[in-house]
């Protein structure tokens, strides 16, 4: 094989063979496997449907906004009684702290009018058995 030249050689075939009658039955084998009818492919992303879905989504969103705000604000409001009860029984705020928080305005509101006449005071003092003790102190 010293002077082997592919162009000068007689044609060399691949040497591959097939089983007897292979091509006689091959067509039928393929035809039997072909899909009978091509199913029509319907894309869920057809442009028309996308618009319908978008419109539906926007509508649902618009309707749900008032409902959402209604429920969320209701949750935020606590009635005064509950708040008072909480502060009175559940919290550890001392009276001093509450006093510190009071402003002049609040104090004015809390002022009481002591329009009591002298006779009433005298009566009250007379009926108080501890009066003498107070005077001594």
């Amino acid at each position, binding site marked *: 094989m010293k002077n082997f030249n592919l162009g000068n050689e007689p044609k*060399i075939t*691949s*040497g591959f063979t097939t089983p007897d009658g292979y091509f006689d039955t091959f067509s039928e084998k393929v*035809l039997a496997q072909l899909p009978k*009818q*091509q199913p029509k492919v319907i894309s869920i992303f057809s442009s028309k449907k996308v618009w319908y879905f978008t419109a539906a989504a926007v509508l649902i969103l618009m309707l749900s906004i008032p409902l959402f705000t209604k429920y969320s604000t209701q949750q935020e409001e606590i009635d005064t009684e509950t708040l008072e009860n909480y502060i009175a029984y559940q919290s550890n705020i001392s009276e001093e702290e509450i006093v510190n928080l009071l402003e002049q305005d609040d104090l004015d509101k809390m002022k009481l009018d002591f329009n009591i006449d002298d006779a009433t005071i005298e009566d009250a003092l007379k009926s108080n058995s501890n009066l003498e003790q107070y005077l001594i102190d």
Partner: protein
Amino acid sequence: MQDEKDFIQELLNPKTQNVAFQKLLRDYQRPLYNHIRNIVLNHDDADDVLQNTFIKVFQYLKDFKGESKLFSWIYRIATNEAITFIKQKAKRNGTTSEAMQTRIVDNLKADTFFDGNEIQIKLQKAVALLPEKQQLVFKMKYYEEIKYEELSEILGTSVGALKASYHHAVKKIEDFVKNN
């Protein structure tokens, strides 16, 4: 070309589809079998790939744009199917397609559906050592005698590049045969 357009219409029309596809099978089964067998080397594998090729041709015929010839389009599908097949088979066996092909060629004598002499086996061995693209070009040009222009359409490579590939392949094969 008009004949080909008519033939494609017949293949797409449900009324004529069956007869037209049978004609396509008759015309293409032998050359396509040879083409696929030259790539996958083994008869059973060639049979599988050939069936898949025709099924794909049937399925994708509606997408065939007519930009290339029907012949080139079908050969392109067959080539892709065959190459994908050997790569997947090699992967399943935990080896490379080159190593797998070399092993098959080394055992060609034992293949029931191979009837070749020493020089035919030597040529197969020499071809199996070529890079993938050169193998493909050599097999299609030498064994199948496909013209460069048609090869160019099938493989999407310029005629010049194909000629260079074939020339390199022949040189390497001749060197291999001389030295072995």
